[in-house]
């Protein structure tokens, strides 16, 4: 630690106190300005909010009336869905030897996609095949391994042995054909032998590959981390093990996004944006005033995109229909006068 000269000390102290004064003065100033502004704003907003709620009330009743059978249907649907899910889970639990979750759905999807893409790649030209098949095979194999992770003691050596025999066989046949493939034969044979003789080690190695959160760079011993697996999961993942308070939240958000997409294909993103926001607001039970305000805000943003970036977003992609955007509405009203003409043009 070095001793600073006294002069330096004092000037630093002076600077610090000046800074403190400035901060305090700024805080006082901002309080003095922002408080009255805040009060004025609230004074304006509150009656608006109340008015909107009153105006909304009849709509709210109608929507509630329409929605309640819909809600009952979705509830029933949800119950059947969960019922089915539970049955599937109960049946597959003994097969997987662990409680099935969406992770298994994810893994099965990866597996299926991997297999599909591998098979579909057979049609490609030789050099266009290599990469997709390699990646598809890797995806399928890894997801398969993860699916059977509770059987790895048995499965891993068997799989390795089978793989080794296969390599040995193909290597041998190519060797007989044209003299190449000796390496492959030897490697294959070696793998098969290892798989049979060192069953346990192969099983353990594969398990550590698959199950343990392994730090490639850490000092961890493979053995030690086995016990810590339970805690390690949450620690190693950082901030992202979370509790979902409301299971419906993500599902509804996803569903509404799909609806948003469908609406976009139908009537274009310009008008489907506020509709989406309103739907979300209704589900999240936001006050009607805020829902409307948010919907208007989102419409403004969509309009900004329409105007500045691309006016194609107002067109429904699938239907080719473009419900008249606001600028054309205003433009028509100004240039043509005559309500009839506007209506007819809008209809075409």
């Amino acid at each position, binding site marked *: 630690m070095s001793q600073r000269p006294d002069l330096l000390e004092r000037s630093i102290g002076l600077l610090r106190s000046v800074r403190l004064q400035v901060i305090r003065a700024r805080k006082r100033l901002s309080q003095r300005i922002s408080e009255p502004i805040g009060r004025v704003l609230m004074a304006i907003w509150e009656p608006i909010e109340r008015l909107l709620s009153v105006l909304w009330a009849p709509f709210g009743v109608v929507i509630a009336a329409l929605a309640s059978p819909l809600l009952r249907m979705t509830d029933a649907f949800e119950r059947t869905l969960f019922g089915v899910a539970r049955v599937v889970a109960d049946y597959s639990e003994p097969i997987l030897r662990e409680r099935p979750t969406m992770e298994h759905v994810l893994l099965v999807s990866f597996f299926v996609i991997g297999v599909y893409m591998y098979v579909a790649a057979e049609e490609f*030209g*030789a050099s*266009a095949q290599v990469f997709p098949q390699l990646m598809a095979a890797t995806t399928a194999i890894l997801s398969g391994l993860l699916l059977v992770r509770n059987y790895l003691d048995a499965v891993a050596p068997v799989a390795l042995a089978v793989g080794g025999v296969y390599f040995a066989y193909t290597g041998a046949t190519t060797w007989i054909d044209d003299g190449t493939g000796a390496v492959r034969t030897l490697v294959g044979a070696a793998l098969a032998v290892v798989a049979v003789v060192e069953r346990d080690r192969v099983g353990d190695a594969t398990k550590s590959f698959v199950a343990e959160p392994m730090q490639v760079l850490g000092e961890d011993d493979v053995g030690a981390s086995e016990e810590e697996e339970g805690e390690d999961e949450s620690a190693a993942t950082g901030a992202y093990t979370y509790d979902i308070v409301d299971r419906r939240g993500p599902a509804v958000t996803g569903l509404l996004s799909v609806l948003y997409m469908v609406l976009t294909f139908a009537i274009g993103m310009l008008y489907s944006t506020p509709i989406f926001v309103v739907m979300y607001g209704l589900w999240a039970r936001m006050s009607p005033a805020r829902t409307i305000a948010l919907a208007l805000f989102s419409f403004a943003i969509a309009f900004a995109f329409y105007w500045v970036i691309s006016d194609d977003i107002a067109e429904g992609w699938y239907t*080719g229909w473009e419900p008249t955007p606001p600028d054309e509405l205003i433009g028509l009203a100004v240039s043509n006068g005559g309500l009839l*003409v506007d209506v007819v*043009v809008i209809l*075409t």
Partner: protein
Amino acid sequence: MDRRRFLKSVGVASAVGTVGFSGHAGAQEDFPSESLTWMIPWSEGGGTDQYARQLAPVMEESLGESIEIDNRPGAGSLLGSEWLFEQDNDGHTFGTVNSPGWEFTWRVEEVEAWEPDDFEPISFAGVFGYTIIANDAHGIEDFGDLQDAYADGDLDNFAYQGVGTDSHLITLLLRDEYDLDWQTAVPYDGGGPVNEAVISDEVPAGIATNTSAIAAEESGDVSAIVNLMDIELEAFPDIDEITEYGDSLAYLTEFRQMQVAPADTPEDVREVISEAVEDAVEDDGSQEWAEETGNILEYGDIDEATEEFDGTVEELEEQVDFEEFQERVEEEA
């Protein structure tokens, strides 16, 4: 397919409808009555885009309406063309295609939704084409040197602009019919990467457009070796010509920037646009730009454009055996 017809008919119906109800009598005579859209099937900053951005302001003056340049890149200009196919044919929307490269790509990709003949030509505004560039490190001055270098085995690789493109076919033809004995033809993803590869001497020579050859020469150690077009290049007055070594390749190597409109766009409307293009091409500012940058501005009116445009696909079919080309591409892969 039905959706396209449906969209087209909706488009036509609404065009007719708008005209009918717009309250103006004889709206065709008042063309253009709103701002126009000029579709460029390549991205901003590219060669074709620059032509458009140079000509558009002058055209706006002639037409009295603003022109919005709409870049729609993708699938080697096919996506933009497909979009243009579906637009209204009242003349307020038109686009640029580079013929015959566009027809070539259309044929190779076996597009079914539309045909080049579905579009109506308006004019052409510019010409560009291919040259061969080589890195100076190999001491190549003309095409003869290049032939010798490959024949002697001093050079092995030759770069072109993408599998299945017209430059791919040209590369094969150069070997088959012009004695350019390259060992390996290396495809890159477009003209820019080819230029880069030749500049850094990753490959000794490759196919580049005449305008990018200028840029390549200026950036250092690269020279344009031979002109693959028939048209002479002012920027390279002493350059070797491929026609000295064999037949003309112009049907593949010379491109015209054609302005085209969706099917059944009325001829008088297209005339108006064509005249505006003429004004823009002949404008002093544009001519200056062309000289400075090496871009070739050449105007062709509706009839000249139609002549060039019609029957391009048939001509290509005559000169090129597409099935054989596609097979060769598959084999060599």
